[in-house]
């Protein structure tokens, strides 16, 4: 990348962050709710992007981890405990369960792994629904309080949106650092060529479990934000379709690209809202749009950009070669 390209990217980043802070100031309650939901779902999708996009392990259980995080937050904060404690519990719990869920991935891959995780997703849903003593079953948990962050109450929609945005920012920084660390490189090795990775001393077993555990923990983080966002939870939002939605966000945005989940969550959360003017047709149009996108670019939105940049680089390289060749030929 050239130095100019780098400055452009920093400028674009600053502009996007500024827009995310300033523009929503005039939004109504519903707009802020949708944007907060985008931030929360992006966090969950980032976790799945680590497991699936970087480490190459299919999971249809990310929605279940959002549910575990949400129930942890709902149960603990309605008992008067602070959200930060619930966050800690959700992270530890989801990390541990995710680690255990990773074990099947050591034996089965691809569709088979998808089915194992799907079974777990169903199991989690049944626990949310049937264990009334803990989750209040189908009646759900209501009056979930919103937290005070650094002394500021986040009861109103705008402060709560900033709370979600700030959390997204922190998670993004941690993720950026993680995928650039030697671990991130090992995760990619796991996806691209596990046999070769093993022969280079990479403990593929431990990294596979780690990819599941960290990805699941981020699902839990998203859940602890989801509960105070909606202030009421029941089992229904955490059924299999949430896992499928999150999978779609990762794939539509661009699996294995850092910014993929941001775009994917935008498509999944915001596009249906923008299409609402078509009334009864909006979900159909949404489905068609997703299908067309994936036919055009199976690697997602960022796959299009990646293809364009690669083509441009190849063209530049061949142009350089052509110049060098003509110079050689005309040399005396």
């Amino acid at each position, binding site marked *: 990348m050239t130095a100019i390209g780098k400055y452009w990217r920093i400028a674009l980043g600053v502009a996007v962050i500024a827009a995310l802070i300033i523009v929503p100031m005039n939004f109504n309650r519903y707009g802020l709710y949708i944007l907060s939901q985008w931030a929360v779902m992006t966090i969950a999708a980032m976790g799945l992007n680590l497991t699936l996009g970087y480490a190459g392990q299919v999971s249809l259980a990310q929605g279940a981890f959002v549910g575990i995080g949400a129930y942890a937050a709902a149960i603990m904060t309605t008992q008067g405990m602070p959200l930060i404690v619930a966050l800690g519990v959700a992270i530890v719990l989801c990390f541990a369960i995710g680690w255990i869920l990773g074990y099947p991935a050591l034996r089965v891959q691809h569709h088979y792994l998808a089915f194992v995780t799907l079974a777990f997703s169903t199991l989690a849903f049944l626990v949310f629904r049937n264990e009334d003593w803990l989750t209040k079953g189908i009646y759900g948990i209501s009056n979930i309080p919103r937290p005070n962050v650094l002394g500021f109450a986040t009861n109103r929609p705008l402060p709560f949106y900033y709370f979600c945005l700030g959390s997204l920012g922190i998670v993004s920084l941690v993720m950026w650092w993680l995928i650039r*660390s030697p*671990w991130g490189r090992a995760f*990619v090795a796991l996806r691209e060529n596990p*046999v070769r990775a093993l022969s280079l001393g990479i*403990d593929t077993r431990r990294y596979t479990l780690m990819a599941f555990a960290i990805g699941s923990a981020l699902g839990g983080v998203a859940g602890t934000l989801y509960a105070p966002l909606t202030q009421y939870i029941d089992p229904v939002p955490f059924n299999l379709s949430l896992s499928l939605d999150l999978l779609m966000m990762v794939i539509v945005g661009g699996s294995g690209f850092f910014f993929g989940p941001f775009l994917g969550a935008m498509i999944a959360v915001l596009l249906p809202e923008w299409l609402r003017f078509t009334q009864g047709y909006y979900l159909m149009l949404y489905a068609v749009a997703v299908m067309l996108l994936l036919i055009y670019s199976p690697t997602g939105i960022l796959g299009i950009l990646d293809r364009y940049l690669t083509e441009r680089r190849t063209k530049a390289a061949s142009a350089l070669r052509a110049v060098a060749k003509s110079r050689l030929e005309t040399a005396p």
Partner: protein
Amino acid sequence: MTAVLEVSNIKKSFGGIKAVDGVSFDVQEGEILGLIGPNGCGKSTLFNCILGQLTPTDGEVKVDGKVVTGLRPSELNRLGVSRTFQLLQVFPKLSVRENLILAGQEHQGNMVSRLFGPSDAGLTAAADQIIGFFKLDHLATETAGGLSYGQQKLLDAAMAFMGGPRLVLLDEPAGGVNLTMLGDLKERLAAINREKRATFVVIEHNMEFVMSLCTRVMVMAEGRLLAMGTPGEVRANPAVIEAYLGH
């Protein structure tokens, strides 16, 4: 001289087929042992048994006098045993430099220190040194998938040397590499062997390559050891000529 690798009575069967049928040999420190034999004679299976990719049906492998049979390939690699593959096995989406850093990073510290340490695990300089050594300088930032076959083969070999291995098993390093590059590769391997006292076992079909590089050559046929000796002895052995050329 001490034996870096001791292989005793390795057997491996797949169903009723005895792919490797009781092979024993030692490799001394600093040696370059060639392993030749017709296709399907069990060379690669023997490699995979030594390296823990396959579990041998019977037999024992020792590295530096320590029994390593049953260890996983990653554990064996961290003990200083590395390998190259017959078919290309680089990481196509990573750059050449990233491929090499990846090849060395698990030899640095432990999992926790790697997570909190520098992004390149402190290996950029070491990677660039190997890149220079294998004459891949102009390709350091290219993605490995965009390299020519021969260049990828060279990268594959280079990756095996990132962890500073004591013993390297090379599976057909010359296959599909053009003559100029082949000369380079041979000269590089000989240099590493001289300077670092690294020990090699090389499977190769290119006789000229084997005979000029190796100090000792071992011939396999139908899962068994057929002959062992200096390149000159092996070339003159009637049993070897028969196994290769038939009657």
